[in-house]
């Protein structure tokens, strides 16, 4: 029972009530001033007697007498996919309630999610379109903005070509927004389209997809509850994915699981591990091979799994043999005893899962790191089962979806690649002739000793990664493998402070002819440079202000409802992309399949109709079963799904048998009601229930050895061995083509163009009818085949991962043994890592900069941080950029906790003024800086460069002022986790 204090009120009649009447006056400061006539202390002193708390009353008060609407959306911060429940009253988001029903977050949030309501009240949001005129920000209309931007883009296209306009998208797009933006790039005619996956998990996607088929988390956060052993390597989930820790820690308790954290820092995650292993940043491969040395040495590997489902493990065995405990200790600093213990536990206390994040991916050997992790999982038979797997925690709220939809220099939506077949597939889906796209692309002249290429060839060549765009503005045109330099950056929702070499990025921004920042907040891209004009800011609404689906890290799709209308003059991505396409002249072709409705300022496509188009084309990744109706039914029935299995009871009328969010692959048409795939490559359950196998996407055999599974197949499979991907020809051979409906057959024949050979070649991934998938699954088979995972990825620079020292290594003595790869042209620009590494060794930079610098996330902030640093509820919790430094290093330098220091880096005299956080979290000789800060640049406060009233509350130096050169050869991923620095008291 709840009882108010109602006693003692007006207990004594008139005296009490008379005095109580005065009570109101005590609040009235002005009448007090008048009455007292006192002047001591002046006005300032008067306000010292204020009462109560000064705050906005209108925003957060829920008036119980008025109707409250409940709307559900998904948190826009990390990839865990927490459902946000909003209480809306009169169009204002007045309250946030826990979402108990969501099996992912079960009501909970981290600091960011619990503060997310502020984002749609944010008075620091960009309020209207702006441009720079003679160095001053001025307000303009949407019409003017679109007109001027469009004209400038067309001018650049005429003079330099389509590839000179770089389209940088966002991992915060909805799936529909991401897909639309990728489609926009295709219609514009460039592959220079990218997003944050480049700098977060591009190496994961490349490494994992090259091993077993798809670039995604194999299991789910919830499934970690089943794990007996968990390794976090380069993941600080407690800060980066806090809600995931609910599942990890529950599992740890209930399973009495072993939790290892292998990290250069004793993180908040490490504090909850059963064992912490301190490593040197940049030595992941040495550690994994060191673990596998013990596994092979002691016969702890899963021999049956390897023989049935892995190709080329012997090559790994040969490499691993070099990593004796002594060598591992020499390179990584980890003792034999500890290595052995971790190895034995991981291999024998199964199921075991391996979790990694940017600590592993942001390296020059990022892809190789990931491949090594996969090899460890394969050797111990820990993939494709509940409680095991590669639990890759992705970063942004929809980085998985944005990756899936090809916001990527090397892919069309759903990993079709850029080959002609891919373009033809999407041409069919989009109902636009293939030749149209050829006409949109640049032909590249011969230059710099390279051959010319036609537009059609150029269409198939990956673009420039987002980590190198500024190099492509400044390098000599001869050195860039496209028609001309980058002249324009069109940036939708991407920070400018999340990529190393910010001093160079600043020069790159200054060199551009056009800079467009479309974002809810002006990012570093709006403030870092000194551009006097041709710079535009477009206010984009957050995903909370528009509807659409997003794909969480575990591949589950969740539909978000629009909570409130876009605030101020902001508008959603769909509308803005439409208006740009309209201005540029291809909106009719591009938007013809969509239902168009009147939006805030213009027509806009409905996200439902965009998703339906995705459903019609996303066969390769199983993005076909997740219709808007099914996704909305899942959101309405969240409470039906099991916490651990994520599956709804079979008898539920709306979502019966489904896995929550229909995690891809969700094969076939929506009508087929495939349940989704909770755990990838899992042969322990029938394919129709989400079972699977490794994907044979690299051929059927290699050097006489089969690449198909041997003696392993999903439960209930009618083919009881390995088999290739399903095509019309395969169906015919099996006699299953008779199972196709006439409509399905007609579609397949249409795709084949009536040519029998082409019809036979129609595969599960381009069959727009979904018939081939349906028939395969009916026979218990995986549409993509049943292959082996590859321990040798012969198409990568290091087919078997090889330890290579970071470009700026604190151990130059090891560079001779473990040098980085030779210089090479990659993604249209030169990767000169080898030359720079050699120079660093020769110049003895490791002596001048004796501290290894690594970087990472804070729980309060996310990404470039503008959104979160503008949110007072979050900003209050981290008010200063800092560097973590070990007490020994600090005392040797006269640095005190909380004092100002200069951090200097080895490139270009870079320096950053930050506060010192003296802590044992980092070892002696190691420093850590978070990467969400910007707004200070090398000691200069740039607050005045933001449009008035839009500057984030908290500004600070970016770590990427200090971080240095270094790029993964497979994806162009930057080196964000291992460089050198020196620190001195400021």
């Amino acid at each position, binding site marked *: *029972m*709840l*009882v*108010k*204090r109602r006693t003692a009120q007006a207990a004594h009649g008139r005296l009490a009530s008379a005095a109580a009447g005065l*009570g109101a006056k005590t609040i009235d400061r002005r009448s007090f001033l008048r009455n007292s006539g006192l002047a001591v202390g002046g006005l*300032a002193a008067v*306000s*010292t*007697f*204020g*009462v*109560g*708390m*000064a*705050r*906005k009353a209108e*925003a*957060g*008060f*829920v*008036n119980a007498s008025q109707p409250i609407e409940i709307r559900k959306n998904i948190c826009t911060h990390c990839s865990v996919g927490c459902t946000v429940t909003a209480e809306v009253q009169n169009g204002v988001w007045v*309250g*946030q309630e*826990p979402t108990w029903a969501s099996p992912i977050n*079960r*009501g*909970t*949030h*981290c*600091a*960011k999610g*619990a*503060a997310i309501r502020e984002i749609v009240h944010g008075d620091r949001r960009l309020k209207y379109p702006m441009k720079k005129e003679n160095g001053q920000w001025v307000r303009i209309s949407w019409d003017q903005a679109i007109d001027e931007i469009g004209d400038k883009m067309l001018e650049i296209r005429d003079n330099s070509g389509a590839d000179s306009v770089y389209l940088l998208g966002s991992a915060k797009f909805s799936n529909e927004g991401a897909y639309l933006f990728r489609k926009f790039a295709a219609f514009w005619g460039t592959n220079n389209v990218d997003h944050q996956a480049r700098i977060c998990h591009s190496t994961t996607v490349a490494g994992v997809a090259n091993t077993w088929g798809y670039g995604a988390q194999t299991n789910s956060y919830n499934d970690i509850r089943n794990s007996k052993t968990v390794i976090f390597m380069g993941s600080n989930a*407690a*800060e980066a994915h*806090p*809600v995931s*820790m*609910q599942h990890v*820690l529950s599992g*740890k*308790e*209930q399973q*009495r699981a072993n939790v290892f954290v292998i990290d250069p820092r*004793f993180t*908040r*995650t490490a*504090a*909850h591990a059963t064992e*912490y292993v301190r490593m040197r940043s940049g030595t992941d491969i040495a550690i994994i091979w060191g673990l596998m040395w013990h596994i092979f040495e002691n016969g702890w590997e899963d021999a049956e799994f390897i023989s049935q489902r892995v190709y080329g493990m012997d090559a790994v065995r040969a490499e691993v043999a070099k990593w004796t405990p002594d060598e591992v200790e020499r390179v990584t600093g980890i003792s034999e005893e500890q290595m052995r213990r971790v190895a034995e536990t991981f291999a024998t206390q199964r199921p075991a899962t391996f979790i990694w994040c940017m600590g592993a991916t942001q390296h020059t050997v990022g892809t190789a790191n990931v491949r090594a992790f996969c090899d460890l999982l394969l050797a111990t038979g820990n993939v494709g089962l509940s409680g095991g797997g590669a639990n890759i925690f992705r970063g942004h709220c929809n980085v998985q979806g944005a990756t899936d939809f090809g916001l990527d220099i090397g892919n069309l939506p759903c990993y079709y690649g850029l080959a002609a077949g891919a373009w033809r597939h999407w041409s069919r889906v989009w109902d636009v002739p293939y030749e149209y796209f050829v006409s949109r692309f640049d032909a590249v002249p011969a230059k710099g000793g390279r051959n010319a290429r036609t537009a059609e060839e150029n269409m198939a060549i990956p673009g420039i990664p987002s980590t190198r765009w500024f190099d492509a503005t400044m390098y000599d045109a001869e050195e860039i493998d496209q028609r001309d330099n980058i002249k324009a950056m069109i940036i939708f929702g991407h920070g400018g402070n999340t990529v190393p070499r910010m001093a160079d990025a600043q020069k790159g921004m200054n060199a551009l002819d056009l800079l467009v920042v479309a974002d809810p907040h002006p990012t570093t891209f709006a403030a870092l440079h000194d551009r006097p004009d041709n710079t535009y800011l477009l206010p984009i609404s957050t995903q909370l202000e528009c509807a659409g689906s997003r794909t969480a890290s575990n591949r589950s799709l969740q539909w978000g409802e629009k909570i409130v209308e876009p605030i101020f003059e902001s508008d959603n991505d769909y509308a803005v992309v439409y208006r740009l396409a309209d201005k540029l002249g291809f909106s009719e072709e591009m938007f013809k399949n969509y239902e168009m409705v009147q939006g805030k300022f213009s027509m806009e496509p409905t996200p439902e109709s965009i998703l339906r188009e995705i459903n019609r084309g996303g066969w390769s990744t199983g993005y076909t079963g997740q219709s808007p109706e099914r996704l909305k039914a899942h959101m309405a029935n969240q409470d039906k799904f099991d916490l651990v299995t994520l599956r709804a009871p079979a008898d539920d009328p709306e979502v019966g048998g489904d896995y929550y969010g229909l995690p891809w692959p969700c094969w076939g048409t929506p009508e087929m009601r495939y349940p989704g795939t909770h755990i990838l490559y899992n042969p322990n359950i029938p394919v129709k229930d989400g079972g699977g196998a490794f994907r044979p996407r690299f051929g059927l055999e290699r050097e006489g050895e089969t690449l198909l599974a041997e003696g392993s197949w999903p439960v209930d499979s009618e083919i009881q061995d390995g088999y290739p991907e399903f095509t019309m020809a395969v169906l015919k051979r099996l006699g299953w083509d008779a199972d196709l409906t006439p409509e399905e057959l007609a579609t397949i024949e249409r795709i084949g163009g009536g040519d029998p050979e082409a019809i036979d070649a129609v595969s599960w991934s381009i069959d727009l009818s979904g018939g081939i998938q349906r028939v395969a699954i009916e026979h218990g088979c995986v549409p993509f085949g049943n292959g082996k995972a590859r321990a040798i990825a012969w198409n990568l620079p290091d087919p078997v991962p090889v330890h290579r020292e970071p470009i700026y290594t604190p151990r130059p003595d090891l560079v001779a043994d473990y040098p980085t790869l030779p210089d090479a042209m990659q993604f249209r620009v030169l990767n000169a890592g080898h030359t720079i590494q050699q120079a660093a060794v020769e110049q003895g930079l490791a002596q001048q900069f004796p501290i290894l610098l690594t970087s990472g996330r804070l*729980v309060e902030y996310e990404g470039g941080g503008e959104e979160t640093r503008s949110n*007072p*509820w*979050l900003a*209050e*919790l981290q008010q200063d950029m800092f560097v973590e430094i070990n007490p020994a290093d600090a005392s040797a330098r006269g640095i005190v906790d909380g004092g100002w220091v200069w951090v200097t880096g080895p490139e270009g005299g870079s320096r950053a003024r930050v506060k010192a956080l003296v*802590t044992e*979290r*980092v070892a002696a000789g190691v420093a850590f800086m978070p990467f969400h800060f910007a707004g200070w640049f090398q000691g200069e406060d740039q607050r005045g460069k933001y449009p008035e009233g839009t500057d984030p509350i908290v500004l600070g130096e970016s770590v990427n002022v200090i971080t240095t050169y270094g790029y993964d050869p497979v994806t162009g991923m930057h080196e964000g986790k291992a460089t050198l620095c020196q620190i001195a008291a400021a």
Partner: protein
Amino acid sequence: MARMKFLCDADRCIECNACVTACKNEHEVPWGINRRRVVTINDGLPGERSVSMACMHCTDAPCAAVCPVNCFYTTDDGVVLHSKETCIGCGYCFYACPFGAPQYPRVSNFGTRGKMDKCTYCSGGPEADMTQAEYIQYGTNRLAEGKLPLCAEMCSTKALLAGDGDIIADIYRERVVTRGYGSGAWGWRTAYGETIQA
């Protein structure tokens, strides 16, 4: 009758600060006032633990004992509340509180104290339930709506428990048994004169 308590399971708390921002969100608590905070003990060292702390709504609350104007009162749920009408911002409750719960807005450049503000266990104050007047002074009254404090409801790892003291003690005890270790019910001995034995 329920006796409401908080319990922070430090073996679950990861210092994600959701409790802090949930509180800010729910009550629009202004900058500088931290009704709840997370403290990390042994930061960066083995055995590091984080504890989310706010007003513990003590049994025999020392704040209430020292308040010169008697602005504190304890509800039938054991929640310690105060009246801002009566509070004079003297600071005594801060001196007496073992948990640093009372907060004072700095009401001028001088930075002297305004009226005390603290965790209300999401149950408002002496104004009528769920009125705007109550909201402005004290924040939302979730308890009156049959809900528990939002900090605990939104805790990312379900480390922070709120509810009837016996029930949350049982939950915690069960966890300690399940996991086979425990680092204590932080603050309970000081606030409630008892601790939880598994």
